[in-house]
């Protein structure tokens, strides 16, 4: 026992004092895409053609729900029009709100008063991976570590839909998982929330249009929160959940 205490002292206190302290993201982190239309001579379409998922369309419009944040558009542009900021707060309540022009994404509104009364101080989630590659899953799971300490916000992942207030879905929803997802959703007592996490769950991600997938969660269950990214940074996920609950 004494050994454990000794090691524990050496490991030190590692929980980030979030939200009082802003998260530190690496210099090369690709957050919110930003474009400078003034620099764009137009007509070349190199960026649009480089995008693997059709997230970037004419007029420098980004669909964050499809975006893999791969940076191919930035690379393709000879004029340096496109960049990625370190803005990690990108979740949205409506799918359409993820389609941005001139980096105009607004921080999301929280739930209505009654929903906040029910979920605001205690939210139990069941996670369903439906074709996810284990990156979104891993960076959701990491919220349970002492760095993020999800529990201190009253949010917890539970082992049964019966104990849950909602689902956090990852993956493009493979046809082979759609029934299991529907059944899990049905097993959660109402009122319930659904959070679609990652490009796959929002839009199908790299698998958009495959006959084997359903292009995200919204085709199967109603979604209350969309969190973009491939995978979203843990801070993006935490920020989205906490803003939904009106905790930020």
């Amino acid at each position: 026992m004494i050994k454990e205490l000794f090691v524990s002292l050496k490991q030190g206190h590692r929980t980030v004092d979030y939200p009082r302290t802003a998260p530190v993201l690496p210099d090369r982190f690709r957050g919110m895409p930003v474009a400078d239309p003034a620099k764009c001579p137009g007509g070349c379409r190199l960026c649009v053609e480089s995008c693997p998922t059709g997230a970037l369309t004419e007029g420098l419009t980004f669909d964050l729900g499809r975006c893999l944040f791969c940076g191919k558009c930035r690379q393709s542009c000879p004029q340096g029009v496109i960049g990625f900021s370190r803005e990690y707060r990108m979740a949205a309540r409506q799918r359409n709100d993820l389609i941005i022009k001139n980096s105009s994404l607004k921080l999301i509104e929280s739930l209505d008063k009654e929903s906040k009364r029910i979920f605001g101080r205690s939210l139990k989630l069941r996670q369903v991976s439906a074709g996810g590659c284990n990156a979104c899953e891993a960076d959701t799971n990491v919220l349970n570590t002492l760095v993020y300490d999800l529990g201190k916000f009253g949010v917890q992942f539970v082992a049964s839909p019966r104990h849950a207030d909602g689902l956090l879905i990852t993956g493009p929803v493979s046809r082979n998982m759609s029934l299991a997802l529907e059944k899990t959703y049905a097993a959660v007592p109402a009122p319930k929330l659904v959070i679609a996490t990652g490009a796959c769950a929002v839009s199908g991600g790299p698998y958009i249009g495959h006959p084997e997938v359903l292009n995200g969660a919204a085709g199967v269950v109603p979604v209350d929160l969309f969190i973009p990214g491939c995978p979203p940074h843990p801070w993006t996920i935490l920020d989205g959940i906490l803003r939904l609950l009106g905790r930020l």
Partner: protein
Amino acid sequence: MSLPPFKTLRNCQTVELESIPLVAAADFRAAIVGAVEDGSRICALFGAPARRSGLALETALTEAAESAAIRLFAVLADDHRGILSVMATDVRDAYPALTPDCPQAHWFEREIYEQWAIKPEGHPWLKPIRFHESYAKKADSSRRSCVPIGITDFFRLEGAEIHDVAVGPVHAGIIEPGHFRFECHGENVYHLEISLGYQHRGVEPALVGGPDRRTLHYMETLAGDTTIGHATAYAHVLETLTGTAVSPRALTIRGIALELERLANHVGDLGALAADVGYLPTASFCGRLRGDFLNMTALLCGSRFGRGLVTPGGVEFDLDNNLIAELQNRISVAFKETAAAVNLLWDSPSVLARFENTGIISADAVEDLGLVGPAARACDVVRDARYDLPSGIFRFVQIPVSTWSTGDVFARAYVRWMEIQRSVDFIKSQLAVLPEGQTIADIAAPAPNSLAVSIVEGWRGEICHVAITDGDGRFRHYKIIDPSFHNWMGLALALRNQQISDFPLCNKSFNLSYCGHDL
């Protein structure tokens, strides 16, 4: 009887399709069974339409005649000699199964049956592995995956006190879906059957006709926790097909990223193993430390999983002196803390009591099933592609192979700990001598009518990619074998005669990929 010769090649080498011996199915079978008896191992065994993988000068007539045929390709590895061998046969409807004489082939042959409706005659267990409609019926491809998932003929024990325990597809934690059937007598598991396919996204059919702008993203998300491993395997395929020389600097950065991926996952696994036996100090420390290693990858390329780093021709991000110093510093600190956290495990009798003699698999089972990665090395089998079939930077810098002999959960944990130490040594030494030069080279057009094999030792074990190009150098077929494809059956065997309550522990000691298997 003299067996037909294989075409031999090195890892990351391209051969012309014409040069691959095309033999009768009976000879194909005899040659593979013989080679495996002599110590070779099946890396890949798969079907591709013979029509599309035929020769450049094929006439329309032979094309039509062959259109119903499927060409089976086998890629074997002779680990001791460091060479690969390939052979092919054309089959129609059925062929004599290899599995009765060569258990390593069992999962591959189930896949062949499911993908192409070619029956391996005499296979004992021809059940679906992914539950999708046969590619042979691709005419109505709009509903390729309309085989009802999970409805199959599960293995059953009979007896008054025998009961089934069914778990999944949705699991209790934040993990991927899969279905497990335990045949139990009381607490004891006689047999575990693993039924997957829930994560099937149709990756392989989507790769046909590539490479295109989505190809790399499929590779990065085949198994998201192995982004660097699969992206590197794919990059090697394209580099050998195009004859691209990648700079030593880029190879070294890839190697560093691959080992960082191993570190993050191994450290995370040791923490999760500790959690599964209720030993919270290590669980809690390692959970945080895993993130520190992921953040080092993010320092390198902006993504914790290495998305966007590896690309055919090199790497997209370079290291400057400040970054090298920062990485050196971070890895030293994180390793010191990891050592302190992990060494608690080996000092705790309550942990060792749960780890030791739990979920044992024998070295014979490893050889029979062709298991790979830490699961094989935990049974004293020296099998590590970084050493046996080196590619990339590992052709120049060898990492000692870490083995242990007991084949139990302890061995699988301890092999990880040894590999953590070796990977840290590798990264530190490579950062100190990072070669000068460019980080990315231009890629030419891939060679037409060729087959390329690329093998990379990911953190779970051997990743094997095989590409076959058409007359224009596009992918006629692209085969992916994640290490999990070899190892799921190992987990099933490890559970025999165990308490069902030890399943989470055994499962975590393998930590296999569902999406890497389901594709």
